């Protein structure tokens, strides 16, 4: 394997545009040389930003490093480029399984099986989910003799499993301004979810009225910048609102993308509640 790494490295050095970086990155990842693997993956992504396998590779590296939020981002991007990418589908299934959302995990595995019915690893994955095996983090706690705290998926966090800031800064509300899921803290650390939710009911109603009376059509989103952070309000369902709050460093465009993903998660959760 060391020879493979050397020869692939040489090939990549000779031709930086080469796609050999994918194999090289995977080899380094398997050798648990995560920093080197990440550098190779990012090098490749700079030159091939629309290569699904490159995003998949980087996601796997991040997942190995337990950076699940960014891994989710990368697998999500992989699926945007290649909707039937089995690596990404399996990866997302793993992430959902990690946070205890077995239904989503199974859904993604089913999609992977539809795309690659002969993939032997899928049966094992199904067994793990259906057999009631504990999520990987919990198993790690058992191996450590209980030294690590067991992973408990918070009820609120389950609504936005796999999304960055699932515990704070994402708030799902009903049309009356009552909190359905998520949490929100002020920059000072105070829990402001209930107060903000109450105000947002009025914001949503006024946005609907404004769009209607000005002939702008249905409103899809409301983005706002403040000195303390940015917000994005959207309607994942007819009777629900979703608020995303992030610090000023996060641009509004990225906030909108995050809100779109969170909206999909919220829609699925709402459908399951009905």
């Amino acid at each position: 394997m060391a020879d493979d790494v050397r020869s692939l490295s040489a090939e990549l050095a000779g031709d930086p545009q080469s796609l050999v970086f994918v194999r090289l990155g995977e080899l380094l990842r398997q050798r648990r040389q995560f920093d080197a693997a990440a550098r190779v993956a990012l090098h490749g992504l700079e030159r091939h930003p629309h290569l699904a396998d490159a995003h998949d590779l980087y996601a796997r590296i991040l997942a190995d490093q337990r950076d699940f939020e960014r891994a989710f981002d990368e697998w999500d991007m992989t699926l945007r480029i290649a909707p039937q990418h089995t690596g990404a589908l399996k990866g997302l299934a793993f992430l959902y399984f990690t946070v205890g959302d077995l239904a989503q995990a199974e859904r993604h595995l089913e999609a992977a099986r539809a795309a690659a019915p002969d993939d032997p690893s899928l049966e094992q994955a199904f067994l793990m989910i259906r057999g009631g095996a504990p999520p990987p983090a919990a198993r790690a706690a058992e191996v450590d003799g209980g030294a690590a705290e067991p992973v408990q998926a918070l009820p609120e966090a389950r609504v936005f499993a796999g999304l960055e800031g699932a515990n704070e800064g994402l708030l799902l509300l009903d049309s009356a301004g009552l909190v359905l899921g998520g949490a929100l803290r002020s920059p000072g650390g105070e829990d402001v979810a209930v107060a903000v939710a109450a105000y947002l009911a009025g914001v949503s109603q006024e946005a609907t009225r404004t769009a209607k009376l000005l002939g702008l059509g249905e409103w899809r989103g409301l983005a706002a910048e403040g000195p303390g952070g940015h917000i994005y309000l959207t309607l994942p369902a007819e009777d629900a609102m979703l608020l995303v709050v992030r610090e000023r460093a996060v641009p509004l465009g990225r906030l909108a993308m995050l809100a779109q993903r969170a909206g999909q998660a919220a829609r699925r959760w709402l459908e399951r509640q009905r």
Partner: protein
Amino acid sequence: MNAVAFGRALEQVTQVRGVRGAMLVSGQDGLVVAEQLMEGLRGPAVAALAASLSSRLSRAMGAAGLGIGQFWHLQCEGGALLVVPAASGLLVVAVADPEVNVGLVRLELLRAAEVAR
């Protein structure tokens, strides 16, 4: 602050492709202070509704500890409403097409807000 300066500032906003109209609105009253609107846009309605939404949004952001809003953008299927509050209590408002370059409009609104300070 004078009518000529306001007019020039609003004209800069309307120069951005996709902007259907721009106006200065009294944030508290929801009344038109100055406007450059295309046909079909009702100034008093834009002013009143933009001010009302701005006020509610500010309260929500205040409750979240994020401070007073500096820019907001209502995205609709058939258009957009973009607002920058000025320090004087006036709002600089633009009504635009859905595919407008939001970044450019935002910049011009911020410049106009400086004039309306």
